[in-house]
């Protein structure tokens, strides 16, 4: 079975500074990887996804992530954060044909300070 580990429950950062949210996964088969953001009292919105091809994936709102198969990681990065990026971020993985249900990490709270 697959699992996802988000190493940091909270990441404080100053506005306009770069940020990296870490995500590691474990799986015995090939995976698809996702980052979602959760807004208060709303569902999850997809930021970006890796299915195949280039290991550097660009998403919405200036976020990007890099798939590293040897380190089984899929870290999320943004070169310059804004106050409005203060939200909960979830890394997720899905495996296998036919069943695309997501296995989520426990989430990382990004706290952008002025």
């Amino acid at each position, binding site marked *: 079975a697959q699992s996802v580990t988000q190493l940091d429950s909270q990441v404080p950062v100053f506005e306009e500074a770069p940020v990296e949210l870490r995500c590691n996964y474990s799986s015995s088969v090939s995976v698809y990887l996702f980052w979602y953001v959760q807004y208060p009292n709303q569902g999850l919105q997809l930021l970006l996804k890796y299915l195949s091809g280039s290991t550097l994936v660009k998403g919405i709102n200036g976020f990007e992530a890099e798939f590293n198969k040897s380190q089984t990681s899929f870290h999320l990065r943004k070169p310059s954060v804004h106050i409005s990026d203060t939200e909960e971020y979830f890394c997720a993985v899905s495996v296998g044909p036919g069943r*695309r249900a997501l296995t989520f990490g426990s989430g990382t709270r990004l706290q952008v300070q002025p």
Partner: protein
Amino acid sequence: EAGVAQSPRYKIIEKRQSVAFWCNPISGHATLYWYQQILGQGPKLLIQFQNNGVVDDSQLPKDRFSAERLKGVDSTLKIQPAKLEDSAVYLCASTLGLADTQYFGPGTRLTVL
């Protein structure tokens, strides 16, 4: 394009009572998921439907939880009887096909007292 709709948005019940949640996926989406998100955790899959058939319900506590998707469109998730540990946000998601992006509804926040 309308998103995934869920109702009610909030529900408060006493333990041992019953409760039902409703989900209307994006039009044309064949795959529907129910997830449970306990406070401070990531969502966990409860059940996955493909049209009106169950693909995966291995993590559904079948002694108290049930779900159906009649006619392959709307879905209902029921808890009977509820326990304190069922307090969570219940999220519904849908996809056009199995390999596509999952779109999530706003969720139903359940509080069991």
